[in-house]
């Protein structure tokens, strides 16, 4: 599918790999198979529930019983169009389902229904950020196809078993242009794609459950030279493995060429345990799939109104949300990126930031909340301090009820006890002291007790920090540090 590298993705050769004979550029294109989020399969009413008993989600159509016919599931079509819109891609109002013919026990029909020459979605784009640089990656196409079942070889000494629960489940194959230049970019691309799919609700993006996996096409060339021969690494099922597959494959190819060899076009497997790729079949051994239009299905056609209806229902997507967070809340690009990476955290942020300073809310979430979540290995949904509680804490900081230091303490108590932050501050007497009389008394006492330090601070104003520290200590952390500082400056005449 990948003939020429797109020039639109202005690529600076900043990702070159060093070989024994000079520098090499890695060219990567990805074919991501994303399971369509849908209750029923692509051409049958059978359920798509994950983890069901083997062969319990199988209809007569999925088992390819004689005389059975496919009937398209409209929701899967809508999901593919939504995804196309999310990828800013061309939507094809007429597309065609083809049969890809081959024999395998987990392929009951003896063919997979896919889209070959006329996919439902055409060219689009995805923006990725790597090391602070934004790059546009071309999408070549997206098509709908059926998943196969699963062959199980480890259950019996003489027989293999077949589980058809996945047989007929709808997949979107999303094909990128060969615009990626490093393992990091490939990983960023898949991460971003997954974020978009999750925002759209068109794929759960759960790679452990196998509902997202990638075929990784890798070739190498001298910078600026013609494209090299590519190898396709099949079915890589985690973002980490995608990175490993790219690195291993690029290095393998460079070594072969530098040793005077040539790359054979082939399909390779990725060994998860070893982090290596190995040959599966060469181009000569490739199947002849005998594609032809599926005569059981009419061309898939819909009108502009159908597309417009879906467009209207589309949620705000990560790029738009990031831009809005920067404009509306004054966030840095980095903070906005972190927050929009998951729709859940972006929505959570907006609830935390409600009526608060956006920047303060973002800082609080990224440093306090995310820090604790990572440390405890939990998630935003199950964290014991709720969005409302975090919003309250930030509110108490900004209106001077508590200091930042106390806020951390309140957060910690809330996390371990589940108590309400406002109640904690009240009950535990953690309110910031704003009574100027009390603060003045404490400050006077410190000045009187430390005449030597008073002399020193007049020569070295940064010594003020020592006085502030002492005053805060005496107040049990409850004094307002700004007020203490201002008062000290006045009293000490600095």
């Amino acid at each position: 599918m990948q003939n020429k590298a797109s020039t639109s993705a202005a690529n600076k050769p900043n990702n070159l790999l060093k070989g024994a004979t000079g520098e090499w550029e890695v060219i990567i294109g990805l074919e991501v198979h994303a399971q369509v989020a849908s209750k029923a399969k692509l051409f049958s009413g059978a359920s798509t529930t994950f983890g069901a008993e083997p062969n319990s989600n199988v209809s007569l159509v999925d088992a390819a019983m004689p005389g059975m016919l496919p009937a398209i599931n409209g929701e899967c079509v809508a999901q593919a169009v939504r995804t196309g819109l999310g990828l800013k891609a061309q939507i094809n109002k007429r597309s065609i389902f083809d049969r890809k013919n081959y024999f395998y026990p987990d392929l009951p029909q003896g063919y997979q229904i896919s889209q070959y020459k006329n996919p439902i979605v055409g060219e689009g784009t995805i923006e990725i950020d790597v090391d602070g640089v934004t790059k546009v990656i071309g999408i070549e196409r997206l098509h709908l196809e059926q998943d196969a079942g699963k062959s199980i070889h480890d259950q019996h000494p003489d027989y293999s078993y077949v589980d058809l629960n996945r047989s007929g489940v709808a997949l979107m194959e999303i094909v990128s242009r060969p615009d990626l230049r490093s393992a990091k970019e490939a990983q960023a691309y898949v991460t971003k794609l997954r974020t978009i799919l999750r925002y759209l609700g068109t794929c759960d993006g759960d790679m452990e459950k196998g509902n997202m996996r990638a075929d990784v096409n890798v070739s190498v060339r001298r910078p600026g030279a013609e494209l090299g021969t590519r190898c396709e690494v099949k079915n890589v099922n985690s973002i980490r493995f995608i990175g490993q597959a790219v690195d291993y494959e690029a290095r393998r190819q460079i070594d072969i060429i530098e040793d005077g060899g040539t790359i054979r076009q082939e399909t390779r497997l990725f060994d998860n345990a070893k982090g290596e790729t190995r040959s599966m079949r060469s181009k000569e051994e490739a199947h002849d799939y005998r594609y032809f239009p599926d005569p059981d299905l009419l061309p898939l056609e819909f009108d502009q109104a159908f597309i417009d209806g879906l467009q209207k229902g589309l949620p705000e997507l990560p790029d738009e949300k990031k831009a809005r967070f920067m404009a509306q809340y004054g966030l840095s690009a980095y903070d906005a990126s972190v927050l929009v990476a998951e729709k859940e955290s972006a929505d959570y942020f907006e609830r935390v930031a409600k009526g608060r300073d956006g920047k303060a809310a973002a800082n609080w979430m990224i440093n306090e909340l995310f820090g604790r979540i990572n440390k405890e290995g939990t998630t935003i949904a199950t964290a014991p301090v709720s969005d409302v509680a975090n919003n309250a804490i930030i509110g108490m900081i900004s209106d001077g009820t508590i200091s930042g230091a106390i806020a951390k303490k309140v957060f910690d108590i809330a996390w371990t006890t589940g108590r309400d932050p406002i109640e904690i501050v009240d009950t535990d007497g953690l309110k910031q002291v704003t009574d100027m009389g009390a603060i003045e008394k404490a400050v006077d006492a410190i000045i009187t007790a430390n005449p030597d330090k008073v002399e020193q601070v007049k020569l070295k104003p940064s010594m003020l920090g020592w006085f502030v520290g002492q005053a805060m200590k005496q107040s049990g952390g409850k004094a307002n540090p700004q007020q203490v500082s201002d008062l000290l400056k006045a009293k000490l005449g600095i």
Partner: protein
Amino acid sequence: MSAASTKTDIAATQAALKSGKQTSIELTTQLLAEIDKRRDLNAFVQITREQALKQAAASDALLRAGKGRALEGVPISIKANMCAKGIETTAASRVLEGFVPTYTATVVQKIMDAGAVIVGSTNMDEFGMGSSTENSCYGPSKNPIGVALGKPDLSPGGSSGGGAAAVAANLCFASLATDTGGSIRQPASFCGVVGFKPSYGLCSRWGIMAYASSLDQAGVIGKTVRDTATVLDVMIGEDVKDSTSLKPVGTSLVAALDDQAKKKWRVGFPREFRDLVQTPILKSVWEAAEQRVKAMGGELVEVSLPHAKYALPAYYILALSEASSNLARYDGVRYGHRSATASDITDMYEKSRAEGFGRETKKRILLGTFALSAGYYDQYYEKARRIRTLLANDFRAAFKSVDVLVWPTTPTPPFAFNSHSADPLTMYLEDVFTVPVNLAGLPAVSIPILSSPEGLPMGLTVTGPHLGDQAVARVAHEIEREIG
């Protein structure tokens, strides 16, 4: 009460059943006895005696209560490629030996829901691949007319040869059949009965074992045009389970037959088919057709189908390409025949399919696989598709100036078994008058037009525009009436 008559048509039978002169049990019992007597014909591959008697009893109860449905109590057979719950269904292939579906094809369910009594399933060429029933794992059916004339080696035609033989021998009142390239019309012609293939899409294909999906269409073999129309009216209808099925337009077919309004029909005959009329028997058919059309007050118009001459090769490329894929599911993994001697998975596929499929089926799978192969696709499949479009356009153009078209159904009267074994291509040529209709998805009826000097039947085909099934039924009905 007199012995039930199995020789009447459906209309007369329904009248007798409704009036109580006859019960469905009597009729069904007698019919089953006659089916047993005519085992020599090998028309049936399954006889569903118990189920039929149960259905007949239920029908009698409804008839007595005055609640008879459209086909209440009428014994009908189905083709062996139509799945029916609890009935072994094999499409006459060893590869499906012992396969008993848990579901019933839409068209079969529809006639059952209308009260039809299913007496059994009828013989056919394996998966519909043939024009003689010689390619059946059950052995060929015989032509009842041939048997009556002392010529038991004559073919009933195919692929629905068993159904046509059963109707011709009065072993059922109608037979549900399928037609991919003539499998309803040619056997109807060979057995001297009526075969009606409706427009592509009118009958659901759901539950019918596929041969070539874009060409397969269910229809009816019956004793009269009215009988086929009566059964088809029940079978026709859009089915959400078949994406290629269509909503019918216009009146029912029976209503079209009963339409009293006189019409001066413009009846076309394609020049290209007339050029093929070279033998005395075909000339007689042509003359007879012209006479009948004139007698019914119709106007004869010559039309042209310039691409008809490419129809046969295009048909075989498309049909076999689709078949090569449709038959891939018979792999011995989930149902049907699995070789007992296989050593590994590839061996299991190869042996199961080699043992399960008959010779003609294997040949067609190989040809279809070849036609779809890389490097040949454009040359064969794609070109055939283009011809199909051009031919459909030819028909569309022709139907601008005529209501229907007529031509002979078959090039010859029934041929003898093995008569094409020396050169298989001559067997394919038997389909020259039937396949163009399937390529264009048109409705067509074959009616008996005359008997050869030896007493063998010849059929005439009436073809109409897509979804113009009413006109086809009406004209065929009028020609049939002229024959008397």
